[in-house]
């Protein structure tokens, strides 16, 4: 019974975070990052994302025209770096405003 309850909470928590993943990713791409470094940056800030979710998401955001990418060879292997393009920057600003409004509303509701 307790385990079933824990499972249900974990599932709802995952659902809750899923909605915020895109905003979290966009927020870290004001500067160029490659998949692995982005995942580490998000995890360090308390937003761990499964690599199997993150890497395809980056491709999808690029296909949707909000990210730009290029291959760079610095020290080590060639890596594909992603960065917000002008459309992505506008999208991030809009989503951030919506996020703040949502957080304010939710705070009023839950407090």
């Amino acid at each position, binding site marked *: 019974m307790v385990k079933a309850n824990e499972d249900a909470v974990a599932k709802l928590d995952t659902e809750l975070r899923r909605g915020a993943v895109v905003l979290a990713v966009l927020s870290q791409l004001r500067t160029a990052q490659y998949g692995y470094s982005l995942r580490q940056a998000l995890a360090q800030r308390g937003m761990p994302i499964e690599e*199997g979710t993150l*890497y395809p998401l980056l491709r999808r955001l690029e296909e949707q025209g909000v990210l730009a990418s290029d291959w760079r060879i610095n020290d*080590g292997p060639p890596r594909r770096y992603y960065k917000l393009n002008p459309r992505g920057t506008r999208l991030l600003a809009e989503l951030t405003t919506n996020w703040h409004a949502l957080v304010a509303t939710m705070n009023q509701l839950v407090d």
Partner: protein
Amino acid sequence: MDTHAIIDDYINNVAAKLPRRQRNDIGLELRTLLTEQVRSAAQSAGRSPDGEMAVEVLRHFGRPDEVAARYAPAGFQLIESEYVPLVLKLAAICIAIQWAVTLPLVFSARLTFGEWWLRWGFSAFAWCGVLVLWFAAAGWVQRRFPVDPSTGARPGIHWLFWVPFPKDWHPGEADATQRRAALGAAPIGALLTVLFSAPAWILGHLLPAGVNTSWALYDVNFKRWLLPPLIALMAVRLVLFATVTLSERWRAPTEAIRFGLWVGFVALLYWAVFGWHIFAHPLTDALFKAWLLFFLLVNTVQILLWIRRAAVRVPQIIEKR
């Protein structure tokens, strides 16, 4: 296998299931990311990266067909991406069986080709629709009633619309499967080559004296013109399979020879089915051609899949030091 070989094997497996235009791009990116992940996992564990660790990281990342499906465009999908190759293979097999069972009516002159096509030939494609509906229903059932992640048990309703679970990935499995296939193909091929060269003569020696084996006699023209090159091709293939079994792996030149012989053999057999009488006895001829046609259609699909797989090798990028 070392870490790089294991990652390459995995990446090639993923790439084989991606649309052609995305293969190299996604494959190259994944290789970099997964290599880095294996290195990082090794660092955390305080040891150098090894094959065991690479397999662990890749298993955690997902089965190749699952990973490829994550890169599929978002939106409604009637059939899960990971099941599309299976649906295609099953459709080809169903069509081949229907054609093979009904084509003797044409070979034995009971139907014209046009009549057969209208009655049996075209309708075989209905299997595609049946399979699409089946897999779509199975997909809906699997989404609606998912597998219990803690036990891995499939709910009972899954058996109502059963579809196989995609196979787990094991590094180097393709090479091992090919070696096993070569090992099995050599003796079976030898037996078939002998039987194919003179079936009536062999049956005459195997069966009790007095049993009529004239139904197994080849048509004179087939025996004179087409049988010798067919037997020659079969014999060369046998030598090749035996060589590969001894050397334990297929290399680029042996793969190319194998492919050439395979295509040549299948093309000659298609010609035999549609352009020649193979057996002198009409019933033997019709039944054998039906079986042969099934064999040929399955081989044609296998050749096409082989070409598709062979084209998938994500290129290497030289690391800057």
